[in-house]
């Protein structure tokens, strides 16, 4: 199954999540958009953490995971938030 969801983050940038899931697991995911994320490579770590997640993972758990990665990488997000990422992932899964 392929999912796609977009969100113009309030006071922020456009976030697009493209993903595929099979047998209840997210098998690949891309976070796309005109946002800023420093260091940029953090996006691969976030995508890597979402990949393999159960499609029923709660928004709260996704937020916690993204926040933990951002903290570990000392990352700064501009125009997106962990909450927006979680919401958009859930929206993409539901498609």
């Amino acid at each position, binding site marked *: 199954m392929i999912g796609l969801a977009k969100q113009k983050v309030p006071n922020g940038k456009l976030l697009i999540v493209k993903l595929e899931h099979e047998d209840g697991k997210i098998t690949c995911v*891309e976070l*796309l958009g005109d*946002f*800023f*994320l420093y260091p*940029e490579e953090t996006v691969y770590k976030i995508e890597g953490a979402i990949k393999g997640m159960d499609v029923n993972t709660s928004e709260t758990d996704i937020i916690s995971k993204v926040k933990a990665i951002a903290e570990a990488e000392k990352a700064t997000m*501009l125009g997106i938030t962990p909450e927006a990422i979680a919401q958009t992932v859930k929206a993409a899964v539901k498609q």
Partner: protein
Amino acid sequence: MNWRVLALEAHDAYFNMAADQAISEAVSGDDAPATIRFYTWKPSAVSIGCFQSMKDEVNIERCRELDVDWVRRRTGGGAVFHDASGELTYSVIAKEHHLPAGIHESYRHISAWIIDGLKSVGIEATYAPINDIVVQGRKISGNAQTRREGIFLQHGTILYDLDVMKMFSVLKVDAAKISDKMVKSVEERVTKVLNHADITQEELYDAMLKSFTDGKEYSMGAMSENELTRTKELAETVYKTDAWNFSR
């Protein structure tokens, strides 16, 4: 600190993006001073942010027809159409500690140079976080920055003469959506120097050169042989490749 200033030059998209990286590497290795660079894009090009999808954002077929290049930047932000005669681009490359530490503060800091330059040609502009400069609420300049290995890079454009229809033809917008209403909508959100000041592109460059260097010690300079060699290498092995440009 003595800044090196690279005078306005026109290059293709691959050279332009490779030069920003090569200069960043040279500054990181203490082989080059902090650098302010001005350039235009010849041929015209579309650049996309590092988190965007080339296939989703750019009409590659139309670019081929119009001899427009396409390239992925190292910086975030959105897709930009760089018309060869429609804008001025700059880069500021320095060690991070030479610029304000905070991301918003550093955007604001360099935006002030652009705002001062616009003011000197009679245009009142303001900084619009995160990364824009606006005139009466309409965007006239977009900017993007990255910080890697202790090096700060910010590049951005100042719109001189935007051709909205040409922009739509190379950016991936459904043909059905390119209606008069949509063009009007873009023109309501975006403006250009020529809407506010009757000056040439060269006069805009002169104004920016003055405002970017105001109060700084600086010398007009050139890229070193090593920087040029590295630029050509990066252009061929990274910025011209599908592996880089279509990586997302």
